[in-house]
């Protein structure tokens, strides 16, 4: 790994200045747009609504439920998708047997399964976690399998010639060798798990941010609706950005 911190450079300053400029322009455009259509709340109202919501225990409980469900979905996606991807990458026979069904399952719009999940996993955490899992699983599985298959054959011969144990080969060659694709899978799984959870909350649930967005919409509280959506985007964006930076740092 390279040293974690690089000294601030002129380039870095310029990038930051650029980002700030883009943000300012976006807010101005938003302000103008809000005057053209009553559905679009003003930026100030939106930020006030966010402040109001973040002080509301019911909102915080919803935020907590959504994030917990997404976390559970993500962890399950890693626990299932990681080993399954390893198996698929390592075994030609497993690929022959499972590749078609995985491609097919990955291809269907997963949300159509939600009505099927509801009676099985119930309206609480169960169904949305499973939906988040369905969204997060495939990027982990597919990236891990592809990563394993791209490991140069000579690494396996190296491991064998050194008489490395299976465990040593797994932890000291295989896992480091697929660190890139694995991190890509993690990054996609994090945001897609959240997408899966929120999407199922839009359809049917008792609590959660998706539900809050929907009820804000029905009651015409557009500022509350937009601020909640922005909060979701910000959370997802921050996580992705962090993981993306991590990804770029690995060799």
């Amino acid at each position: 790994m390279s040293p974690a911190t690089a000294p601030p450079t002129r380039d870095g300053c310029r990038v930051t200045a650029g980002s700030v400029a883009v943000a300012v322009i976006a807010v101005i455009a938003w302000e103008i747009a809000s005057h053209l259509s009553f559905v679009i709340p003003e930026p100030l109202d939106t930020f006030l609504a966010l402040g109001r919501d973040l002080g509301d225990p019911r909102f915080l409980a919803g935020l907590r439920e959504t994030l917990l469900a997404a976390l559970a979905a993500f962890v399950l996606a890693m626990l299932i998708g990681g080993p399954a991807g390893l198996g698929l990458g390592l075994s030609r026979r497993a690929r022959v047997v499972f590749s078609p069904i995985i491609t097919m399952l990955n291809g269907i719009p997963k949300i159509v399964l939600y009505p099927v999940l509801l009676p099985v996993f119930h309206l609480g955490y169960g169904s949305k976690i499973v939906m988040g899992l369905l969204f997060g699983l495939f990027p982990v599985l597919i990236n891990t399998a592809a990563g394993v298959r791209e490991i140069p054959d000579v690494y396996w011969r190296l491991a064998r010639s050194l008489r490395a144990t299976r465990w040593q080969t797994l932890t000291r060659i295989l896992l480091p060798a697929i660190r890139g694709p694995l991190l890509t899978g993690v990054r996609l799984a994090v945001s897609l798990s959240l997408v899966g959870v929120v999407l199922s909350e839009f359809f049917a649930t008792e609590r959660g941010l998706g539900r809050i967005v929907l009820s804000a919409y029905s009651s015409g509280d557009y500022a509350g609706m937009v601020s909640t959506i922005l909060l979701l985007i910000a959370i997802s964006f921050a996580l992705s950005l962090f993981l993306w930076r991590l990804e770029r740092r690995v060799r």
Partner: protein
Amino acid sequence: MSSPGTGVVLDDVRVEFRSSGRDGPVVAVDGITQEIPAGGFVSVVGPSGCGKSTLLSVIAGLRAATSGSVRINGRTVTGPDRDVGVMFQEDSVLPWKNVTDNVRFPLQIARVPRAGRPRLGPGHRPGRAAARRRIAQRAQEAIDLVGLGGFERRYPAELSGGMRQRVALARTLAMRPSVLLMDEPFAALDQQTRLLLGAEVRRIWGETHQTVLFVTHDISEAILLSQQVWVMSYRPGTILDVVDVDLPADRDASVVSTPRFNALHNRIWERLRTEAMRGFAQENRFPA
């Protein structure tokens, strides 16, 4: 130089590959009965695809021969052995480790877990600290031996192809194997770097007295480095000729301009030329 039974002994080694084509199995290597005395330096030359890597992987214990046997220092090869170091044709330096960690890698792998040893409590593991020091010291010796001193903290991506092959060599040498198998280690490098690294290998061999099998398709490299050259044929890969290199032991690159070097070169080239043409005809299904 050696007592009988030591070194590398090949006895009628044959390797077939089942091919998907209609021609039946491909015989990659056939009827190879040869010997490298302990401490000897032998090169194998032959056209590409003639079975050099296959032969090497059989000696390394990475592939079983279809028939015949290999004995190393008196023991029949049944699988990989840490006393036999392999340097592969492909770039096998691990990109996520710096030079030092790459060279330490085999030593760390070889440190078998000492099961059933009583724990003396946390932090009280004199054995571990000593082992770590030994590994660090051995790796540093190998790094210095191949001239990588000063590059310890560099990552492979920051090194040239020649430097990366030095890392691979150091990694192989760190285990102090008594037999060194090198599969076209410098084939991907430019001519100057190849000459330089060849000279390094010969110098190191002069210091370590390992038994070396060096695979190459470069005739000059084979003559410059080794005591004996095996000339291999194409499909089936058999040994066509065994050429003893009767050049001075302390030779350097200037030896290429001597008449003796030229005579050896011509002899090997004549063998390979007819072989290469036969192989070309066979590949392209011309009437040979």
